[in-house]
């Protein structure tokens, strides 16, 4: 039933900006689709590609990694490492038969509640269009 | 044209006179251009008011040959808007006066046709006379 497919998104958010941005979306009651599950880490720099792979294995149709805007990192430069790491990992997804569009990297500040909601909404729609992730059985 | 500023040069005579007559300190001008932008008659001037002040400050030649201060009618737009409280209108008046003292009246009323003289409001004639003669 393609029409009612509800994609599953795993969000990994840094505590200081993106997670706080998601909180702001809440305080402002900005509505977005309930498809995301959020894991908080202190810094986007903590996010190991392994986490992303495991998320796909565990049933996620998409993974959102969100951290502070460039220059805003609470830990000075963790988000820059995250950017490099996640981008290069994204480049390898094809190899596993995963469409690169299923991994999204976004920068969300603590005040950008609306932006956070928009990112989730947009990603939900994109994934809906892509359909469920079917992993090749290893 | 390169302007040469000589060592040991005296403070420009004209500047000194203008400052005395207008009781304005031209050095206080920030060259912000508000006066020029606010002047309704700038289009008829051959040097905007702020540039006139700068020419006076640097003692550039030819200031008295300019039309600007004759064009100025003393409407005080610039005075109202200058952030540095410089009364440009008074500087213009001083230049008119110095010019008249040095080279005589600027207006030859006799040259105006009789009919015009009769038609014009008295204030126009008197004001014009006052501004253009000593």
């Amino acid at each position, binding site marked *: 039933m393609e029409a009612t497919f509800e994609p599953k998104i795993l969000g990994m958010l840094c505590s200081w900006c993106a997670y706080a941005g998601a909180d702001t979306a809440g305080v402002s009651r900005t509505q977005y689709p309930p498809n995301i599950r959020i894991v908080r880490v202190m810094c986007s720099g903590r996010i190991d590609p392994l986490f992303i792979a495991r998320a796909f294995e565990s049933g996620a149709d998409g993974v959102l990694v969100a951290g502070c805007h460039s220059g805003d990192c609470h830990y000075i430069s963790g988000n820059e490492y995250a950017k490099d790491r996640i981008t290069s990992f994204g480049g390898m997804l094809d190899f596993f038969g995963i469409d690169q569009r299923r991994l999204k990297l976004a920068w969300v500040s603590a005040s950008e509640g609306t932006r956070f909601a928009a990112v989730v909404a947009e990603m939900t729609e994109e994934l809906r269009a892509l359909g469920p992730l079917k992993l090749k059985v290893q | 044209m390169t302007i040469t500023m000589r060592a040991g040069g005296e403070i420009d005579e004209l500047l000194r006179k203008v400052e005395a007559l207008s009781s304005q300190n031209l050095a206080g001008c920030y060259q912000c251009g508000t006066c020029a932008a606010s002047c*309704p008659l700038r289009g008829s001037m051959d040097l905007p008011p702020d540039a006139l002040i700068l020419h006076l400050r640097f003692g550039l030649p030819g200031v008295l040959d300019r039309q600007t201060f004759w064009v100025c009618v003393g*409407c005080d*737009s610039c005075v109202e808007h200058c952030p540095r409280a410089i009364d440009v209108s008074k500087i213009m008046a*001083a230049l008119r*006066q110095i010019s008249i003292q040095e080279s005589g009246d600027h207006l030859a009323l006799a040259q105006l046709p009789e009919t015009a003289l009769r038609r*014009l409001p008295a204030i*126009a004639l008197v*004001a014009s006379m*006052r501004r253009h003669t000593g």
Partner: protein
Amino acid sequence: MGSSMQIAYYPGCTIKASAHQHEGAALAVLRTLGVELREMAEWNCCGVVHSLTSDNLIRHMAPVRVFARLREQGENEVATLCDMCFNTLARANLHARQQPEQIAAISVTSGDELSYDGGAGVLHLLQVLRDRVGLAAIRAHVRRPLRGLRVYPYYGCKLLRPAEVGIDDPETPAVLRDLMQALGATVVEGSLQTQCCGAYHVVDHAEIVAGRVAATADQASAGGAEAIVLSCPLCHYNFDTLQATSGAPLPVFYYTQLMGIAFGLEPDQLGLEEQQIALLPLLQRHNLVHVKGEQA
């Protein structure tokens, strides 16, 4: 109707010579409002422009003499109609108050033993109307509201600047607007209302004036105005004679003339026929005057 208010009045040269329609209208309107303007028995030219340079002291004499005469006549306040006279007198007054030693010095050297301390008051007629008579009283006298008439008040410079003597806010003056609205007219405003018309350049650089007048009249027309209303005889002359705009020239009224119309006074009391740009056709279009003989 008995006069309830009396004020000394300084007419100045221009009012008497080329702007008597303004004076006629003013006197008639004020009579209606119960204000009597008592012309000073003896007056001289105000000097027209306030002298700005510091050595030109003798030029402050003329206005000071006006005040001295006023005092001799037992008055302490004087009203003017002409913006230029008002400005010159008011600035001279301020000068006399701020630099009494200068006035004393010129008075002695000129052999003219005038003594004046800057203590008298000088009023523009618009101030009398706004602050003494009040807009409510004016509104109460309106018999023929100027409904539908769209006017562009023009202030020029002398009424507003410098701010120390101006009768209204130099950025957003309201006195003419409020007055016209009290008469029932619709007001059109624009940024050139407070910009100089070129003034005395009409004498030998009429092109400067023509340029300013055209720009202002164009702004008024673009805003939908049908007429310009103003208070200064020199502005009036400039707008009336040099309005070479692209469209049809806008009629130019003194505010006193429009007050007269609204008060229901007879057109011939108001000097409506004495301008170059005819005023009557517009008034007729709005049914504000009826041309004799054409009455339906």
